[in-house]
């Protein structure tokens, strides 16, 4: 697939609205028994959170997803650096997206500033992803 990559270009964003079932399945899949993710009275009354807390690494996964959906079969992620800056809660609608900040046409190395932001436009998980772009399935370069 031929396409144009330019610095400053935004990649397509994606909204995530996880529910109780997804949050339970995610924590089960990684074997995380932390009560703040499934025990509402514990999360709110004991820990003082406004609701069930979304698992931080799940947001990290979404940063990868939004870049991979844009890359398709034309590249792979080689590095990510991100942080969980603030908590997100069940019921939040979160948007994952990013902007290309560097692209080397020789090597195919592309750098994308990525983010997860909530409805209040607060960035709760900023990061930088580095990927190698090899269009038309040429993974040898």
């Amino acid at each position, binding site marked *: 697939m031929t396409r144009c990559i330019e610095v400053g270009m935004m990649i397509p964003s994606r909204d995530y609205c*996880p529910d109780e079932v997804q949050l339970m399945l995610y924590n089960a*899949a990684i074997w995380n*028994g*932390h009560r703040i993710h499934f025990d509402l009275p514990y999360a709110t009354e004991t820990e003082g959170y406004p609701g069930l807390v979304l698992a931080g690494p799940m947001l990290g996964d979404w940063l990868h997803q939004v870049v*991979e*959906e844009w890359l398709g079969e034309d590249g792979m992620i080689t590095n990510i*650096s991100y942080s969980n800056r603030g908590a997100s809660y069940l019921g939040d609608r979160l948007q994952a997206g990013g902007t290309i900040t560097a692209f080397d046409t020789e090597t195919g190395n592309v750098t994308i500033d990525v983010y997860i932001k909530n409805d209040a436009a607060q960035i709760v998980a900023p990061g930088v992803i580095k990927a190698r772009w090899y269009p038309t399935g040429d993974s040898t370069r």
Partner: protein
Amino acid sequence: MSAILTSDLLSNIGRQGLPKRELVTRRDIRKYAIATDNRQQKYLDGDIAPPMFHVALFWDVVELKKLTPDGVSIDSLLPRFPLERAMAGGLDISYYRPIKPGDWLTASRILTDIYEKLGRSGPLIFYEIMMDIRDDEGNLVIQEKTTRILR
């Protein structure tokens, strides 16, 4: 001289955990891909593992009685810090080759750094853990640096 980090605490830098060797299965990949709401068929079918699948593969599996009342497993790599409230953490992950069903992978962790900074509301403790994930031939598959902040 550090205000809250004693030389005893700092002597934990370099501490290594026991390596963990795990088998990658198609079923575990599928569960992970579905639970993260991934939309790519190769991951949903479990043909190949999505990035961050290693989080699921190497999360501590401990007996119920070893979990704290809030359901957390205590990381034996860490010393008891004088600050205990966890703040934001960061990850830096490098991917060297894809993970597939049937792969046996071994994760080795080392506590690489402990340091202190003065935050707006008082001292902060930072620590860093480096995890290398290698295949049975010894090739590096993933390298992950975790940074956690305590206040």
